[in-house]
């Protein structure tokens, strides 16, 4: 009985092992084909860009193929990733024109449907598509996802709102209660710099009343990044905060900053109260830089 059972177990295990070999072989072949498909799509997109300028007739065939490809979920994500890759090589206005040429109602409808999905990954990708391809028509659908339960979706929604609304989106920060990561803050600031380099301080001032500590941190970083000297006092004042979190953020931001005279004076007054030797050293260097 035991022997028979063991023999059966061994046969099952052998069968499992052989199946795994076949699965490995299939995966290896599938990966190779997937890579080839990606290369093909990339080539078509590059050809479309090139033909669009010197052989518009030929471009039409590529355009039709790309439009059909982008009307499917996998195709849409894939094409978006390639466009993102090509952004480093194609100038803004040219890139906008070719993405607009291949985006059609079918694509927008697909993205709208994806935004309503129960799967967080699908939703997050759809949000990225909205801001990478600048689908302004879907801004309301994106804003409605601000408090999504998945943090990655929330992050991408924040970024999308910045890209699609600019400084005006800071109005929404006042009521935002959830935490935001350092990376999210970095991306928000980068997108503002990239798309809306001219600061609209009226929206910033409204946002500065936010209670959320992460929003406050983001705004302090914004102030430093855009060199808004009129608002440097917000950073210097954080040195007196009871929260070590804010003290550390303030020191980090003040490092290598060149402060205007009045803020440098304030900092000099606060310096004796700084107990931490490392923070003291950093702030002293900031004062030296500011006086030069």
């Amino acid at each position: 009985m035991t022997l028979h059972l063991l023999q059966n177990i061994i046969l099952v295990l052998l069968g499992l092992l052989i199946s795994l070999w076949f699965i490995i072989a299939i995966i290896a072949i599938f990966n190779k084909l997937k890579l080839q498909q990606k290369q093909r799509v990339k080539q078509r997109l590059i050809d479309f860009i090139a033909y669009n300028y010197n052989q518009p007739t030929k471009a039409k065939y590529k355009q039709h193929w790309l439009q059909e490809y982008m009307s499917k979920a996998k195709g849409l994500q894939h094409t978006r990733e390639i466009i993102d890759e090509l952004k480093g090589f194609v100038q803004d206005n040219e890139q906008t024109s070719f993405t607009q040429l291949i985006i059609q109602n079918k694509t927008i409808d697909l993205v709208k449907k994806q935004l309503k999905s129960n799967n967080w990954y699908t939703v997050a990708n759809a949000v990225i598509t909205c801001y990478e391809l600048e689908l302004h028509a879907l801004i309301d659908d994106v804003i409605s996802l601000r408090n999504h339960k998945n943090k990655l979706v929330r992050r991408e929604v924040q970024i999308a709102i910045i890209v699609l609304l600019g400084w005006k989106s800071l109005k929404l920060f006042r009521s935002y209660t959830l935490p935001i990561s350092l990376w999210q803050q970095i991306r928000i600031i980068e997108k503002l710099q990239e798309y809306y380099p001219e600061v609209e301080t009226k929206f910033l001032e409204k946002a500065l009343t936010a209670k959320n500590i992460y929003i406050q941190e983001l705004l302090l970083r914004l102030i430093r990044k855009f060199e808004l000297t009129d608002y440097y006092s917000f950073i210097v004042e954080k040195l007196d905060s009871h929260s070590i979190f804010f003290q550390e953020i303030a020191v980090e931001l003040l490092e290598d900053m060149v402060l205007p005279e009045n803020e440098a004076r304030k900092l000099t007054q606060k310096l004796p109260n700084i107990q931490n030797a490392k923070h003291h050293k950093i702030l002293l260097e900031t004062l030296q830089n500011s006086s030069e």
Partner: protein
Amino acid sequence: MGTVLYNIINYFFLGYGILLFLCYFTFIILARKAIKENNKKSSFIDIDEIRGAVDLPSVSLIAPAFNEGKTIIMNVKSLLSIQYPYYDLIVVNDGSADDSLEKLIKEFSLKEIPYDAYEELHHAKIRNVYKSTKQKFQRLTVIDKVNGGRADALNTGISYADTNLILCTDADCIIEQDALLKMVRPYLEELDKEVIACGGSIGIANDSIIKNGVLKELRLPKSLVAKIQVVEYMRAFLLGRMAWSQINGLMLVSGAFGLYPRKRLIEVGGLDHTTVGEDLELCIKLRAHMENQKLPYDVVYIPETLCWTEAPADYKIYTKQRDRWSRGLWETLKKHRYLLFNPKYKSMGMLFFPYWCLFEFGAPIVEFLGIILIIIYALLDIVNWDVALLLFLAAYLVGCIFSTLSILLFTAHYNHYAKPKMIFKLLLASYVEPFTNHLVMLYAEILGYYKKIFGIKSSWGTMTRKGFTTENK
């Protein structure tokens, strides 16, 4: 009475084996889920975006070096070519007896600089600190100190560093150029839990082509000993560590490649130089520290191979390495035995630490006793050889399946060993492992425990390096 004892012993071994099998089966499920989730999450944070970002945490790479004269220049050049905007490289020459320091001084135009003797961590005396006179090597600092061991050298570097994060590595490791960009991702994304340690997968680069400190062509090691370790690392990193990190149960971040917040390293007193398993001890210590502070935390693992090292290519060095690992395990578990079934430490005390004691520590002992028992039974002529052989075959096939699954998961998600010939060789290597490396490893582990039981002094030992294969310029 004799029959009862006989049955108890047999059922103990059977039960242990089944329990271990169930654990590995659970690891496979957890690992697969973790890899899928990690792949999805990592698609949302492009390393090119990190590369161009500001406000990133600053990192110090600390690379202890002891008698690395043969490869030190190539390795340091490799470490200096890492793509990350805010990092420093601190090479700690731990009292090398060879010409490591002289080579560094000459190659990088180093000169002595005055340094602050303020020490946040205890370590052996620093002789001198050097910086380069050339702008292109401004990231490099070389600290020359009295020999104190790897942990001591790392503590010296940690103490000297002035950055948010510390990457502990070895001077003989080849780190991928975008490694820091990927390793720093969890720290950028942390929200409700603080990331206290982040580990990456380590690959074996024996017989691969390295040019200017960069891995140009990955090849399988020629030696069977090293080839088998490729599969072993796949199992350990891809299955084991991914599975543990999925349930926040990761208790070990490799000493060759681990990223930590400097603040927390200082708080726990750095690495323990009294143990040879300082990497395991550090991770457990950090976790216990956060549990004591009642602060939420995470130990994260990046499944991509970001660091390449040279594995032992012969059994002599392999035995020394595994002997050291088992002694390190013994010392660390003994030091932190207060965790065992301690509800104060929640899952770490009730599940993760007991797992390490029962299986990581216990498995070689159980296996060794099992072999002894088989021999005794054979001498007493009470072995049912038909059943015994079939049981052995079943156990062997289970092992083969786990190794094959590791290779399958690796092939499905990463393309390092994508060529069919490579996959075939790895499969074959894994199928001969139970008869080769595994037996030597068992011997080395029992030897390590023997040394601890009888107080036989043994240190880190010296791993003789052949060096990587370099392409001629």
